[in-house]
């Protein structure tokens, strides 16, 4: 087998294994900690008899392992179980919300990725001069403020003071794309600022690393123009680390979405999750946890696979 195929399939297998492990870990946490679904439904003041009855009814008295595999089997078939609080099918509630979340994350990525790469290049081009220092000072500030506060700062200054965009990001299916985009403008801005800092810093480091390599010096000493040096020699080697950076930050973005959705009361997965954590609705928390973990693990896996595919030593073995 070609070594690259072997490595990629190994990485895929590892991803699946991690996913399985993560689901077990999440399920295990809810098992190992005091309190369970029955307790959550009845509250702290419930009588022991009522608790026992409900546990019997919900099947919580069966061994944890049995219930884990039932739950896992359900997920594989698209059955995420039933919410405790409103008795609705979780898969149904999640469907539309997941779409909304991915919609928000997609636009945030679409804005932040090119911007981060552009700023990263700019910082490298003017390294240690004022544009670089300005960019690094601004990014240092944005990573020093939590997402939700950036959100409110923007709401206060942009929506309230300037009267631009809506402070609440309500969207529904009857809206046109333009209306939707107007509605999510502020959350997209927040998410962009949050991931931009990390992504831009990592991109800067990745490009600098390549630009300081001996083969770029060789290219310079061949009398190539700056454009050709970057296009022919730096870029082919910088693509892999940059894609890697982008993937890692997209994974981060998906988590950042959780908090930002709460700020803007956006009907996505994050708000759904936080809501049901407050209500101690265990099945919903489990389902959302596994979905977020799956997206996170998946993006990290893609990042690793890109790095493998881009390595010339692996692509052209001896």
């Amino acid at each position: 087998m070609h070594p690259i195929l072997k490595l990629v399939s190994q990485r895929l297998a590892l991803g699946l294994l991690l996913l399985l492990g993560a689901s077990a870990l999440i399920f295990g946490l809810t098992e190992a900690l005091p309190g369970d679904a029955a307790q959550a439904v009845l509250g702290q003041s419930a009588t022991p008899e009522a608790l026992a009855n409900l546990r019997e009814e919900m099947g919580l008295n069966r061994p944890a392992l049995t219930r884990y595999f039932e739950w896992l089997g359900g997920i594989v078939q698209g059955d995420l179980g039933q919410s405790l609080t409103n008795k609705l099918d979780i898969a149904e509630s999640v469907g539309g919300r997941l779409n909304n979340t991915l919609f928000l994350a997609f636009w945030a990525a679409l804005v932040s990725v090119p911007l981060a790469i552009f700023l990263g290049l700019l910082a490298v081009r003017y390294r240690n001069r004022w544009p670089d220092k300005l960019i690094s000072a601004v990014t240092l500030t944005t990573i020093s403020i939590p997402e939700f506060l950036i959100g409110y700062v923007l709401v206060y200054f942009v929506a309230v003071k300037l009267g631009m965009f809506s402070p609440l990001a309500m969207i529904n299916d009857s809206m046109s794309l333009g209306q939707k985009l107007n509605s999510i403008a502020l959350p997209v801005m927040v998410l962009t600022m949050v991931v931009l800092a990390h992504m831009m810093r990592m991109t800067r480091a990745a490009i600098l690393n390549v630009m300081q390599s001996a083969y770029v010096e060789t290219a310079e000493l061949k009398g190539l123009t700056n454009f050709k040096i970057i296009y022919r020699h730096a870029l082919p080697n910088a693509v892999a680390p940059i894609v890697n950076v982008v993937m890692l930050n997209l994974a981060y973005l998906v988590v950042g979405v959780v908090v930002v959705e709460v700020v803007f009361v956006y009907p996505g997965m994050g708000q759904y999750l936080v809501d049901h954590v407050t209500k101690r609705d265990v099945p919903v928390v489990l389902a959302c946890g596994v979905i977020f973990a799956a997206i996170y693990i998946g993006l990290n896996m893609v990042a690793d696979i890109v790095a493998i595919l881009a390595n010339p030593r692996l692509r052209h073995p001896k």
Partner: protein
Amino acid sequence: MSDTLLKVRDLKIGATVYPPGEKPHDIEIVHGVSFDLERGKVLGLIGESGAGKSTIGLASMAYGRGGVQITGGEVWVNGRDILTTSYGDIRKLRGGEVTYVSQSAAASFNPAKKIMDQVVEAAVEQKKFSRKEAEARARELFAKLGLPDPDNIGERYPHQVSGGQLQRCMTALALCPEPDLVVFDEPTTALDVTTQIDVLMAIKEAIADTGVAALYITHDLAVVAQVSDDIMVLRMGNTVEYGTTDQIINNPQEEYTKALVSVRSIEHEEKQPTPEPVLSVDGITARYKGLNFDVLHNVNVELHPGQTLAVVGESGSGKSTLARVITGLLPPRDGEITFAGRKLSPDLKGRTREDLRELQMIYQMADVAMNPRQTVGTIIGRPLEFYFNMRGAEKRKRIVELLDEIELGEKFIDRYPAELSGGQKQRVCIARSLAAKPKMIICDEVTSALDPLVADGILKLLLDLQKIEDVAYLFITHDLATVRAISDSIAVMYQGRVVRYGPKSQVLSPPFDDYTDLLLSSVPEMHLGWLEEVVAHRKMESAGN
């Protein structure tokens, strides 16, 4: 004068340094250097690290590496001062008129592109040749430089050929655009000695065939003497001496040049073996964990008290592995080690404190062999404390004695390793091992990271200390000049086996086995025409076979 290709006048080069805890400031690293190079001639630039030789070489392409800037003087190439010309003109100069061969071809080739694309790039870019012509020329150069399969090697990626081959590809890259001048920056330093000679000869012939002029930068005077017409000796950014190769080698004027020429001229009389060896290695076979082949095969050597056994070989010969086996870091699969009359446990854990004390080790990289958070006093004092339970004034007195023995003195006792020069660091490491009053010290390439004159000082010190302390050395090295200078007996290693072993006089006298012959004849000698003699000799031999 019309033949002058490169004219450098009063060249001054500065750099910005960033000392920790201080403001960055500019310093001058080259202080007004002048020289001329005629068409088709080779000028050797030689000096220790920090002499500014690479910086001067790159200045002939109007290039400053990192924060380096040319601050004054003139550099004339083909009749124009390249320090005042436009950037567009400099681009035409680089890769067209002047090209560059770096020390590390492995790093200088783009890992993502095929060799051929990179070799012809400058020639095509500078419109010297069409792509097709350039490729034909590249294949011609590959053949001339002795690369295997010259028609197809260009289709490979850099990591698919060996280090010596890639260094030749880099030479092809530099020669392909038919430049007027090539800057060779330590092109053979990273290579094994037997590979170096082939690359050196290939470069020399290529220079002669193409009639190109060259700046040949190296720290090795014996190497530069083989390829250059003139030599400039540099030290700390100043010209020490500038003259023809013949004059520099055979009639040096300056003290510094004389020292460089006479380096490794230490006289050491071979001692006779004693009946009772301090160390005997019997039938050692070893492999690393996780590997399915042996890196040492049935090694047998002996070391006698107060004497030096040199273990010599190229990278991958197993010489450092042998040291790990003797110290107990790598238990062997087979064989045993007898030390000071007792059988040593194969594993470090099974050895007594006495075993450990009497068998000390000095490392190649003194930098990382000392804890950066400990002072010289702590470093040398710890063995005294650990083995002899010395404390307080008694310990300090002994530390000072040891510091005197290594010619540093008491004032060094509170310094940290980072405050020492390379040679001083290695001296402290020597003192640390002597503090244990060992019967034997393993010296693993202890001079190979040092500049020649500093290395010479260390070797002299080791020989003096051997007389005083009556300690035996197992001296691991790839450098035959060092071996000649200090050993009493020699073991030549090749691919995990000892291929030749005996007293120095015997090992270094014919008849030789093939490998020892190759190794010995590959060591550059400090006389003119050595390279041609060796190559002619080898051709004759292979014709005879």
